[in-house]
Every structure is written in structure tokens, then in C-alpha cells.
């Protein structure tokens, strides 16, 4: 069920408008006219060539992380009522993120994300596609858009697929949308923190390289039908993809996933857990030229035991993400790599103390935070603001499409450029194509 449904008789689309107007108290006058920039504009010059998306699946609490409200009272803060000064004067973040506090000069915090939807699926869709659901098309997520423009169609020749998810796919909606299966992410499976990172299809747990080579020869000698029609287009296609697959299985691509060659001390700093090592893996992937990596970081849907969970989970996030930012900078990759941290929504600033939640936070799409770093985004900035409790956007709303459009622009993908689609409709890559998609303009203040 979509919990974001405002009330009977109001469609999701109406609900979105209604919540934005009534909930956040913002005037539509703030909005950029939908088609003001629809005329063909040349693709912007690229500053970034890769994105690492830290997907906080379940919805992270904005008030316990990047938008703390220490003075809101115990009903809001719970036990986490302290803040940390960062290395940027004037910017404070939550008390469980000490390492990130020392990296604040590298990232900018958006404290005015809003879409008003409180259902996981719908919110995950809108945050990653920029579009309200319910239209006639299922739009692709940003990763698939990047894969379309910067992947194999865009001249990418790497062996690792251009859109990688560490480690499990999100599953809740089809990331490739109308672009089709070719643009779906490659999900690694396995665990980068395990002794051997078994990457589904690439690094096998059971088969030695010698046996791989031997049985490939066996396959060739027994592929009788293929030999009977070598010129057939399907046979030729099969041969091509097989060659590519073996380049990955037996070649350098497989070595890319071998984390044992990294400095043990660095691995320790990232954190010896799945998220920490996924961050390290992500750095290796963008270092090898992969344009889009999603770290699907689950476990943030804390309706119950919220604070207990935060006490062990936020330090993991802190170490992994802070080390990633520093390590990208050390490898001179940060200037060309966008790090994008966000969930599908935030969590209710007011704590649900009552049974059965006993100190939980629920879904909150009306006001939440996102973090961006690198690839042309300025560091040490705060965009927008929420009110004293973190429940309403009071300054500079940022809709999902504004953020996604900004990322596209930095990647050199014109957000107003044409978006290929199966029905041949005139759609724009990451700019509102219809009335139902609100926008307050791209993040020029931090670009």
C-alpha cells in the first residue's frame, strides 16, 4: 500500500501537489516555469565523469544525521541531542558522525529535499527518477540514464558494466524503466567484506581459472548447432557476448574485485563491514572508469529500536563515507566523482514513543536531507533549511528532479536534452516534461 495516499479520492499526483502546498507552505510562484528552458540547449561541459550513489534504502533520519535539531526537545531528539562542529565554521551535524564532521569541507548538505510521499516504492521511484508515479511511462532511475548516455552507447568500453550495484539490486522498481533491460544495473551479489568477494558471474566460488579455460573449450567443441550456423546473427551475437564474459571472468575485470591487494590499514579505516568495503570497492570501480556505482545500503527503516540501531549503524556509515571522501581526494578522483547520499525520504522528526514503536521514527517525505560531494559540487555549503523541528521546508525547496538535473548537468548530460523512449514522446532527460513534476531550479548555488 502506498502510505503516501493523502486521503480517499485524491490521486497520488494531486496528493503531491497538495502536500507541497499545504504541507510545506510554499508558493508555486517559486517554481521555475515548466517549459521555460525546453528549447534545445547544447549539452553542458562535463565536470564529473562518475557518480557513487549511497542509497540509504529505508529512509535515514535527517534529524539524527545532517540536519540535527538539538533544541527541539526530547520528543524530537530522543537521546541523540548533541551536535558536532565540523571543519567548516557554522555547519553542525549529528553527534554520531565525527569522521564526517572532519570532511565537511568536501560536501554540501541539502536540508530542504521534499516530495511529500511517504510510501517506500513511490518515494524511491520519485527520488531516483525525479518523476511522480502514475504517468503512462515508467521512467529510468538516474543510474540507468547515466548508463544510457555514458555507458556502451556513449563510448564506454570498460569490461565491467557501466552501472554497478553493490551488492543487491533494489528490486522495488525496475531501475531501467522504459529504457529496457540493457540499462539495468549489474548487481554484484556476494560480500566485499568476505575473504573472497564472490561477484555473481565474474568471480566464481568453485571454479579455478584452469577449469574455467578447460570447460570453455569443452563448450566450444560441443556447441554443435552454433557450428552448423556460424553466420546466423544469433550465433554471432552469442559468440560476442561469450568473449566479453570471459574477458571479465579470466581477465583484469575479475582482479578489480579482488580487495586483498589494498592496504590493510586503509581497509580498516573504511570499516571491516559490508558497507565500508563497498565504499572501497566503489572507489576502485570509478577509478577503473565505471560511470555509475550504487551502494545499496539497507536497514534504515527504523520504525522500532531506532536509537539502538543508530548507535551501531551510524558509526559504520560515518567511517565508510568519510574514508571514501578522503580516499577519493587522495586518489585525485573527487574532482571528477560525484558522491550522492540520500534515501527515499527522511524520518519523522517527532519520535514515536508510544507502543508498539517504543521509540521509533516513521516515513517522512515532506522534508529530508541529501548530501552531495565532488564532481563539480562545492563543499562546505548548506542548501535550504528546515524549520526548528525539521518537519517543514522553510527555505529553498529542492525537488528530486532539481538534484538529479544538477547531477546530469555536471556529468555533461543536458537535462533538457531529448530522452529516448519507446513511444517516441518528446521527453526531456531530467527536466520536468509535464505539469505534475514540480521544480525549483537546479542547484546552481553549489555548482
Amino acid at each position: 500500500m502506498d502510505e503516501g495516499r493523502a486521503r480517499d479520492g485524491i490521486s497520488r499526483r494531486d496528493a503531491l501537489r497538495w502536500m507541497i502546498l499545504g504541507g510545506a507552505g510554499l508558493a508555486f510562484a517559486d517554481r521555475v516555469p515548466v517549459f521555460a528552458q525546453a528549447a534545445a540547449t547544447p549539452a553542458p561541459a562535463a565536470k564529473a565523469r562518475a557518480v557513487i550513489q549511497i542509497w540509504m534504502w529505508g529512509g535515514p533520519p535527517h534529524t539524527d544525521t545532517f540536519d540535527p535539531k538539538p533544541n527541539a526537545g526530547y520528543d524530537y531528539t530522543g537521546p541523540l541531542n548533541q551536535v558536532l562542529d565540523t571543519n567548516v565554521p557554522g555547519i553542525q551535524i549529528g553527534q554520531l558522525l565525527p569522521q564526517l564532521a572532519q570532511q565537511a569541507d568536501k560536501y554540501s548538505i541539502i536540508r530542504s529535499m521534499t516530495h511529500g510521499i511517504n510510501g517506500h516504492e513511490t518515494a524511491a521511484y520519485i527520488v531516483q527518477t525525479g518523476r511522480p508515479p502514475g504517468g503512462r511511462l515508467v521512467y529510468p532511475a538516474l543510474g540507468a540514464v547515466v548508463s544510457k548516455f555514458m555507458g556502451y552507447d556513449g563510448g564506454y568500453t570498460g569490461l565491467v558494466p557501466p552501472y554497478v550495484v553493490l551488492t543487491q539490486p533494489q528490486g522495488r522498481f525496475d531501475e531501467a524503466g522504459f529504457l529496457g533491460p540493457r540499462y539495468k544495473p549489474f548487481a554484484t551479489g556476494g560480500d566485499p567484506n568476505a575473504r573472497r568477494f564472490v561477484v555473481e558471474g565474474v568471480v566464481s566460488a568453485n571454479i579455478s581459472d584452469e577449469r574455467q579455460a578447460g570447460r570453455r573449450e569443452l563448450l566450444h567443441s560441443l556447441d554443435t548447432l552454433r557450428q552448423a550456423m556460424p553466420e546466423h546473427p544469433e550465433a554471432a551475437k552469442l559468440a560476442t557476448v561469450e568473449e566479453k564474459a570471459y574477458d571479465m571472468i579470466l581477465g583484469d575485470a575479475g582482479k578489480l574485485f579482488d580487495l586483498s591487494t589494498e592496504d590493510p590499514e586503509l581497509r580498516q579505516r573504511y570499516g571491516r563491514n559490508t558497507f565500508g568495503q563497498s565504499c572501497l570497492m566503489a572507489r576502485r570501480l570509478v577509478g577503473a572508469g565505471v560511470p555509475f556505482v550504487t551502494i545499496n545500503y539497507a536497514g534504515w527503516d527504523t520504525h522500532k529500536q531506532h536509537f539502538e540501531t543508530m548507535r551501531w549503524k551510524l558509526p559504520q556509515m560515518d567511517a565508510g563515507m568519510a574514508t571514501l571522501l578522503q580516499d577519493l581526494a587522495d586518489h585525485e578522483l573527487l574532482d571528477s566523482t560525484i558522491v550522492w547520499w540520500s534515501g527515499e525520504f527522511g524520518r519523522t522528526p517527532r519520535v514515536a514513543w508510544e507502543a508498539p514503536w517504543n521509540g521509533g521514527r516513521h516515513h517522512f517525505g515532506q522534508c529530508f536531507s541529501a548530501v552531495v560531494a565532488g564532481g563539480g559540487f562545492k563543499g562546505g555549503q548548506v542548501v535550504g533549511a528546515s524549520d526548528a523541528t525539521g518537519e517543514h521546508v522553510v527555505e529553498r525547496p529542492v525537488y528530486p528532479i532539481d538534484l538529479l538535473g544538477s547531477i546530469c548537468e555536471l556529468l555533461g548530460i543536458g537535462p533538457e536534452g531529448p530522452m529516448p523512449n519507446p513511444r517516441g514522446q518528446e521527453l526531456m532527460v531530467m527536466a520536468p516534461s509535464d505539469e505534475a513534476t514540480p521544480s525549483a531550479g537546479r542547484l546552481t548555488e553549489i555548482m
Partner: protein
Amino acid sequence: MLHVIRPSLLAMAVLIAAVGATATLAQPVRPFESVDWSIPANGVDTRVLAALEQRGIEPALPCSDEVFIRRAYLDVIGTLPEPEDVRSFLADDRPEKRAELIEALLAREEFADYWALKWCDLLRVKAEFPINLWPNAVQAYHRWIRDAVRENRPYDQFVRELLTSSGSNFRVPPVNFYRAAQNREPSGLAEVVALTFMGTRIGNWPEERRANLAAFFSRVAYKGTDEWKEQIVYSDPTANDTFEAVFPDGTTVTIGPGEDPRVAFADWLITADNPWFARSIVNRVWSWLMGRGIVHEPDDLRPDNPPVNPALLSYLEDELVASGYDLKHIYRLILNSRTWQQSSIARSDDPDATAMFACYPVRRLDAEVLIDALDWIGGTGESYTSPVPEPFTWIPEEQRTIALADGSITSTFLQMFGRPPRDTGLESERSTDTTDAQRLYLLNSTDVYRRIANSIRLRRIAIAAGGDTAELIGGVYLTLLSREPTADELAAAQAYWQTSRLSSENAAIDLAWALVNSMEFLYRH
């Protein structure tokens, strides 16, 4: 080494020109082809061959019995044959065995499963976004569709029920036809009606003509009930205007107050001389079995997209009408034709050979059929995910994927292998493309490895073979490729036992792995 004998096309052309006969000259490719036809040419064949002859295209040879049984199982019931059925079929030397097998397969329960799946793609049977039929209605609708396929309900009756029913989406399942549209406005309903039953995309019709068609659905109304997600679809009885409705062929009808214009539309559509109705369905059935429509694509009938073989199309239309809209009659005609029973190895390099049906088309297995085959080998069940944790999303372990009702219930495998999302009802939604991700999965995933390594079916073969490697290899071939190995294949496989220095168990795993990854396993051929 394998001896594939393919006379060069040039040499063949010379021979054909010289002798004037074709089939007896070409050497069959073993084990895929045979020399002589054991079945007579039928009405389909005379029309296909006439067109080929006119173009100077040579048809392919007959497919072998080994190819035939695998093809028949996969095309008719989306299922691999059991090894013992293959063995007895190959041992049978009566000429009528092919026709008998076709008849037996048409009567199987899996026939209903597999073709209901196809219909559910076209009718967009999907609980969630963007169709939103909801789970309960999906189950009712799927069952109704499957029942219709199973009892071979006359096609005219099937369509009339879909077009004219009124009532609850739970209790009168065909009303879900009008709910399974992303746009439930009259214009959106006109679009799906034309696409589904006229094989026509009205997007490029003139606006007036589209509006005329939409008018037939202007009284379709929906209302909720106290039951969760129940919805009543009905024709608005309070509409009190009278209007002149114009059919797509320009004829008109007067719709009075309270009348249901859907009925008038169905009366017009379902007639023997309607230019769209019979044509669109026989063309679809042909494309499902022959890989390509006589009009291609099968849901794009329009004057500037002519049929590649008009005589063949009219013949099938006439046969459908004369049989009382018996779809199985059309299946029978096609399946018993030499055209469908040709080899997939083309004998002509004319660029139009495939489009004119001069060979059987090679196609990758459908996602659902392939995962069922892998589950059948491994003795495993697929685990599915659904976007919404609602009732009816629990799937029993032994559930076949071809029998899955709901397009919203999916798996990584199904998405990877191009199962249609059921968003539009377009035939092109299904992808049988071969991608890098698929190849990596099949060649090297732990999932495929586990299925093979843990397969009880394969272990039984090993036990039955005792220590006899040749018998083990034969059993694996019969199970996975529905045939015995050729002498060359047997020698190559036996050599692997020697050279790989693997245990017999691991060598058998690699043999099964190699066959699963062969074109012969992965493609209909």
C-alpha cells in the same frame, strides 16, 4: 571433429538450375536435419512454397525427429520433454507420430498455462503500477483466461465476453479488460481495444477517427464497493443522449439512451468480413509459432504495412472463420505444416528468406520457459519478489513460472531475460535479446552452478550409468538436449574426462554446464 556438410550456396544454385529439383540434393546436417519429408504438404505449405518459388528462394530441409520433439514441446507447451518420452518418440518409426505428438501436446495442461501466459502479456495482467489491477482481480482474471484457453473457447466468444461484460472485477473476471489500461479514459480504452483485437496502433490514425472509436467506450464507468479493491465495471445506464457512432470502417450506428455502445462495437467487430478481427488473431498465432508475423509486427496492421504473403494470410483467416473461430484448428494447421517443421538451418542466403518463412526461426527461449527448464534440471523452485507485500504473493515451491498469474511478481532472472513488463500489451515488450549480463549469469554464476551440482536428475543418471562414462554422457545429452550425442560429441566429452583431471562428478557437472550454455539448449531451433 564434427562433420558439417554445407554445400556452398553458389554450387547449390548451379545444381538447382541444372537439375530443377531441390530437396533431394542438399545434404542434411546431422543431427538436426533429415532427408525426406514423412508428412504431406498442407494448405499452409502450398502458399508458403508458391511465394518462395516466385522469389527463387529455396526452403530448408525437414527437421530431424530429435529437433522436432524438442521444438514441439517448447513451442506448444513451453516445457522440455522428459528423457523417456524422447526415447520412445525416437524409437517410433510410424509416419503419423509427429501429428499424434502435436495432438497430445495441444491437450496438455501446460498448453493452457503457456498460452494463458501469452494472453496475460497482451491483456496486461498485472497487480501493481502502472496497471494496478490489484492482486485479487489478477487471480480471478488469470483463471478466467486460462480456462478459456484450456477449453478452447471459440475466439469470437472470448472476445465478446471481454468487450461487453459488466460487473465486479472479482466475480466477473473479463471486466478486468477495461481496468487493465494505464489510461481508463475512453481514448485510452479505444487504444487498447484496437491494439488487442484489431492488431492496430491508433496513434497514427487521424484524430477524428480515433475520437469515433473512443465514443464506443464513452459510457464505460467504474465504481468501488465496500470490499477492499473491488470495483464494478458497467455501462452507465443514466446516459440519456442519443448519438451517431462511427465504426473504424466508416459505417455508423445509432446509440440510444441507456444503451451499451460496447455491444454495438462487438457486433461490428466480430463478423466474418470484418477486415481486422480474424486477420489480426491468425497473424498473431502465426507470429507466435513462426517467430514473425505475416504482417510484421503482428500488432501493427495498417495499409502501408502489407503482408509478406497475402494468400497465406487470407487462407488462415478463412480457416478460422470456417472452423467457428477455433484457435486450436489454426495451431494444428501451422504445427502440422512442413513450413513449421523445417530445419532452422537456412538453405538460401536471400535476405528475405527468414521473413518469407524459408526456415524455422532461431529464437532464444522465453525468460519464463528458460527458468522453468533450469528449475526442472536442478529440481529447484524460483524465488520471486513482488513490489508490494500483499496477499497472493506467496508462491508454492513447485509453481511453474509459465503458470504465474501476476506480471508484478517477478525475479532478477525474469528481468534479466526480458520478460515483458505488461505495461502496454505490445508484442515487442518481450525481449529475447542476448545480453552480457545473461551470459555472465549462465556461464559463471553460483546460481547456475548450484542447480547443476545439486541436480538429483543428473545424479540419478550418474548412478544408473555405474562407471560407464559413455552411458553417463548419453543420459546427460538425452536430458538436456533431447537427443543422443553424435559420435564426435561422445568422443569430445569422453576426452574431457581424461584431459581435465577432474573427478567424474565434476567432469559431469562441466558437461551439463557446457550443454546448458550451448546454443542448442538456449534457443528454440
